[in-house]
């Protein structure tokens, strides 16, 4: 089922420059991020320079440029989570993993993404790791959660 970038491009023959954003979305859907190679292929297909594609992609929060980590951490910064202190949770995660939003740790274990709402505001503040939701986290408890994943990742 894994679609490659050439598959995606082949499904859009003669796509114009206005197709850039939907194509970027499909690429990210398939590969988890926008790679250099994907930008090169998109550029040839759409006759666009790499700097332009990268420029357009960085305009939107949704695109990432590093592969997802084994554990993809989503931290909610929506209104309810914000009111319940998600800023401190976010800071604690960044401190622990030493990465920023959109980045992946060097060992490939963790990637980080800020999201606007995970749809379980009653449990705010929320963090999801590979889709598994952890509710009512605190800056302290989130560090413990991450430590558990790290141990699990080291064993696996």
């Amino acid at each position: 089922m894994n679609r490659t970038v050439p598959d995606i491009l082949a499904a859009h023959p003669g796509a114009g420059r206005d197709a850039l954003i939907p194509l970027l979305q499909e690429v990210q859907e398939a590969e988890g991020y926008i790679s250099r190679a994907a930008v090169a292929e998109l550029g040839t297909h759409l006759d666009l320079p790499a700097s332009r594609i990268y420029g357009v992609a960085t305009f939107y929060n949704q695109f990432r440029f590093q592969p997802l980590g084994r554990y993809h951490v989503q931290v909610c910064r929506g209104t309810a989570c914000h009111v319940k202190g998600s800023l401190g949770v976010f800071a604690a995660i960044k401190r622990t993993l030493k990465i920023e939003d959109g980045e992946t740790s060097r060992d490939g274990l963790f990637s980080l993404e800020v999201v606007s709402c995970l749809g379980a505001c009653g449990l705010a503040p929320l963090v999801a790791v590979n889709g598994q939701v952890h509710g009512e986290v605190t800056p302290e408890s989130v560090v413990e959660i991450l430590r558990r994943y790290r141990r699990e990742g080291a064993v696996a």
Partner: protein
Amino acid sequence: MPMIEVNGRQVTAREGGTLLDALRRAGIQVPTLCHYEGLPPTGSCRLCVVEVEGAPNLVPSCSFPVSEGMRVQTHSPRAVRARKTIVELLLSNHPDDCLYCAQHGNCRLQDLSEDLGVRQRRLPGSRTRLPRDISSPAIVRDPDKCILCGRCIRACAEVQTVAAIDFTGRGSGTRVDTAFGEGLNISSCINCGQCVMVCPTGALTERSHLDQVESALQDPDLVPVVQVAPAISVSLAELFGEKPGRDVEGALNALLRRLGFARVFDTSFSADLTVMEEASELVARLQGAGPLPLMTSCSPGWIKFVETFYPDLIPNLSTCKSPQQMLGAIIKSRFAGIQGIDPARIYSVSIMPCTAKKFEAGRSEMLRGGLVDVDAVLTTRELAELVRRRGLKLGDQAPEPADMPFGRRSGAGKIFGASGGVTEAAIRTAHFLVTGRELEDLTVEPVRGPEGIKRARVQVGELELGVAVVSGLGNARRLLDEIREGRRDIHFVEVMTCPGGCINGGGQPIGTRPGAITARMRALYRIDKGETVRTAHANPAVRSLYADFLGEPLSGLSHELLHTHYEARTPLR
């Protein structure tokens, strides 16, 4: 012709023109930042706003069409206040380290703050601190000084069609950057410096070689030798306040000696040498020894452009090194030999109108026995700075000749500095090589002038030679696409990376007056006209170099010293 009223005065505008165009033609000053002469307006900086009667808001004059009877106030309190606020906002996130900035004293942002009476930091914003991009051998980018006018992006994408940089991010996170923020050195940048020429601040500068040249000049173990490109003598005076087009060759030689160079040589000499090699290569290729058209190779930005975007056309490039590298090689071989100096002790500096020459000097193909032939490259701007650092003045110098034998040049070598010059010089010599006779009229008019694409057909013996001369890589791209599609009637292609040629190179004075480029061009042709020796093959220094050292053009030794090869490049482009 619509009539409009500006500040109570009647002004004739051009049909379909912009308001800014009408104002400028009437001599009315309205400041601009993002405006780029010759390209369509983007209207992004809003600095050019004026008040138009009946319009509810201020309008950006750079993108506002004129219409009959329009009444305009360019300096109403409201317009001036708006401009001042814009500049204050730009300054709120500016490092304020003007004293240490390379553009100090020649900065649009400084001028604007001055003209608008900004006397205090009124809006203390939070300042971003970003790393400088020092990855490139030619260009340094300091994003902290960038005011996001977008002019560099347009020079790179629209004039040069390289598009190494673009806006990234959004809102307060907007930056100018390369794809994936990887640094200019591994981007598709071809080091032309045209972005530097249009940047209104110190965000883009050349990579300076001044400190290393200064210390080499102080080192008693080194023999500092300098070569000067053809375009320098007709541009330098502008940096000392003189009007464009003055030739200061003699004073320049004197200055370079005062700076401590043991020998002052002329790159126009090796331009003549290039003509000998390249015209011979053309004649050989016309006889079937290689693909046509033959494309010139003196402009290192263009070379990297072909390697990056047209690698299939690499075989069409002349194998000749550029005049800078030819003279560099001759200095460290022949000159060292005659003088009995170890080439490793020679410190070879070139003064170039160009930033890409810095990159070229360090290309691995240019190394001989692990040594570079050119140790440092100073732009016209850096030379002026060096002169000031030493407390010297251009005007004080009595003219002196360059040193022999590599200071001797023909008129042909000198016109290399203008787009079309290489072609004209090559035609003069190719005609002689093919027919054994000189051209009746040495002037090849159709390849002269500021146009971006020039074409000519010249009779050389039996053959009608088709030549195309382009400057600016956007124009080169158009021509290359024609060639890729199978155009066969062109035999010789000259490409200069910068619009107009080296006289408008990326190392030349920034913020020149309108008309400066044509004035420099005219000066070069004037020098050629006054010369008794106007062809490369008649240059006595070139003749004796062949007789005593190289043998003949395209000889084994010529190939070893004066020719090179290229490699396809695959940056993210």
